[in-house]
């Protein structure tokens, strides 16, 4: 692991584009090459917002702070530029694209990464696609189905992991990848992520989850607790276990105290 983080977030604040109130209220986070981090938090804590902001979702507006990726400020980059720079977001709610097969979709995405005039080798592509689908226990016919159209929850999430495998990002943001999965699907998906991380130990992974159970299958190097738009606790894998036992209540109390303190300070000043 190198000394400079591949992703560095400083005092990041962000809001929904049409609204006034910040959802992210000053997030600080450093991810080093190859690390697996998990951000946990209750609904509405801002963890999914963080993932979308990092991927450049146009529905959110950054109101302050910085995000550097591989040392470059990415706050002005479009989502496609971020993707090409190596950021991948596995969606919590993958979007349906009727009439576009998974194979066609992935081909277009990979072709978009090539220089003008360069053509994707379709035979290599096909071989890799089939191998990756096998790894994720997907039937080969899956490649010809329209993207997420009529998919079950589990199929959608597998499809996200398939894209992760095919696009080989340096940073994978997994937004509630475990939601809506039964235990079998959860195992397949987490095996897939582990396998990809073994193949490419330089790949950095940020897992965003509400529940601890995904972390039974994927061992994080660090766990952060997010509450009300801030990271309120960071530590090792044991933090997840703390949460499992105490829930988010302890943190809520701690945070309320911190806020009261900050407000009191502000008033004094």
């Amino acid at each position, binding site marked *: 692991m190198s000394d400079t983080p591949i992703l560095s977030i400083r005092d990041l604040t962000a809001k929904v584009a049409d609204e006034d109130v910040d959802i992210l209220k000053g997030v600080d986070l450093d991810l080093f090459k190859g690390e697996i981090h998990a951000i946990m938090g209750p609904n509405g804590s801002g963890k999914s917002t963080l993932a979308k902001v990092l991927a*450049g979702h146009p529905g959110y507006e950054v109101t302050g702070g910085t995000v550097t990726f591989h040392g470059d400020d990415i706050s002005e980059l479009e989502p*496609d530029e971020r993707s090409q720079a190596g950021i991948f977001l596995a969606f919590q709610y993958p*979007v349906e*694209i009727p*009439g576009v097969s998974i194979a*066609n979709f992935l081909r*277009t995405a990979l072709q*978009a990464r090539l220089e003008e005039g360069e053509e994707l080798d379709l035979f290599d592509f096909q071989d890799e696609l089939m191998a990756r689908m096998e790894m994720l226990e997907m039937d080969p016919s899956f490649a010809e189905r329209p993207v997420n159209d009529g998919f079950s929850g589990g199929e959608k999430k597998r499809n996200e992991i398939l894209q992760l495998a095919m696009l080989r990002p340096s940073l994978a943001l997994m937004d509630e990848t475990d939601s809506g999965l039964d235990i079998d699907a959860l195992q397949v998906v987490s095996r897939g992520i582990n396998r990809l991380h073994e193949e490419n130990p330089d790949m950095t992974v940020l897992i965003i989850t509400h529940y601890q159970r995904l972390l039974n299958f994927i061992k994080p190097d660090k766990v952060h607790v997010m509450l009300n738009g801030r990271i309120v606790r960071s530590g090792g894998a044991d933090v997840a276990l703390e949460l499992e036992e105490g829930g988010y209540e302890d943190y809520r109390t701690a945070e309320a105290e911190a806020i009261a303190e900050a407000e009191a300070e502000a008033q004094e000043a």
Partner: protein
Amino acid sequence: MPVNDTIQDLGLDEYKYHFITEDEPVFRSGRGLNEKVVREISAQKDEPEWMLASRLKALEIYNAKPMPTWGGDLSKLEEVLDQIYFYVRPQEKMERSWDDVPPSIKETFERLGIPEAEQKVLAGVGAQYESEMVYHSLKKEWDDKGVIFDSIEDGLKNHPELFREYFGTVIPAADNKFSAMNAAVWSGGSFVYIPKGVELDTPLQAYFRVNQEQMGQFERTLIIADEGSRAHYIEGCTAPMYSTESFHSGVIEIVVKPGAHFRYTTIQNWSTNMYNLVTQRSLVHENATMEWLDGNLGSKLTMKYPSCVLLGEGAHGSIMSIAYAGDGQHQDTGGKVIHAAPNTTSSIISKSISKGTGRSTYRGLCKVYEGAVNAKSNVECDALLINDTSRTDTYPYIEIEENRSNIGHEATVSKVGDEQLFYLMSRGMSEEEAMALIVRGFIEPIAKLLPLEYAVELNRLIELEMEGSVG
């Protein structure tokens, strides 16, 4: 979503694919439409008396009929019609040269991936077409089977009885104002006859035939598919149609005899100053099948509703259409199915895309006459809006006189969603690539029915059209 200026920079939206050539026609009628013009056309074509009489009668009908007030905006059309030449006989020899074709047009061809030999033909400068050999061997096959595939003028000259038996029987001059106009001044188009029981594997492509004649502004096509025959006719192509004129009004008549199976595919991409008002209709006899596959791109206003009149028991009609309305364009399209016999079935699938200030209208009719028991019809129309300024309307007319029938209608309107775009862009596609992929997916159910080369061209064209669709 703001509309980018780049499309104007590329010159693709404004007078798209449009260029002007200094042609010197052998014969040109005066401006506007009158009896003198009609007589001149008929004389130039050396037609029999009955055809002249038919043209003159049609002119009377045209003059008597008011301009339609439904559909698209035709309020400026009178001015256009006063200015146009209703007949220009093609030059004996092409005088344009490839060097005269503007680089921008050549680039469009390049980007559509059209081979150079075909580009020349499309640009109207090709006297020699490399697939001429292909054409000749096909022509021999057709001749051997007794298939007639001629220009409409040669059809009248060489097969006068067959011609007269069917001409104007599917779409009489009095059908509507523009069918009357066409019947008065028609010029160019195809005459096709498929004999009983003959099946053709290779589509009849108007493209082969018209490469040296150029499509007329008032094209007239008459097709007779005799009993038990099977054929596919392809008209136009996705490559842009060049016309210095701003009005096109075709009439396509098709007779599908008992047990025959006929498909008519047309994809047209008109320059954006064009009024394109076309009447296409087929009479479908007992146990016969008629399929219209219709793609409309470009033009200022297109009004076109391919129709199937299901005359015989067990007849089947199918209409599938794609319409693309870019900035300032109005595609008023759809289809009509008329069930006039028992056990007839039909389906209409219509997909439209509106971009920028484009407007697409689905206008369809499903009519079931009393006695057409067990008639089944299913209509599905889907509209896709690209920008907030894009518009779509749906006018499904359903007239049912027979209770023992089953009619279904489904309409959807969707807007290219921000979430869809974000999803695709987060995989590395540019906004334009993402948009093009969504649109391609939308038309896929119809595009997959096209011959491969057409589908490929259509996809490339959609990509070109999507450039500048985003800001």
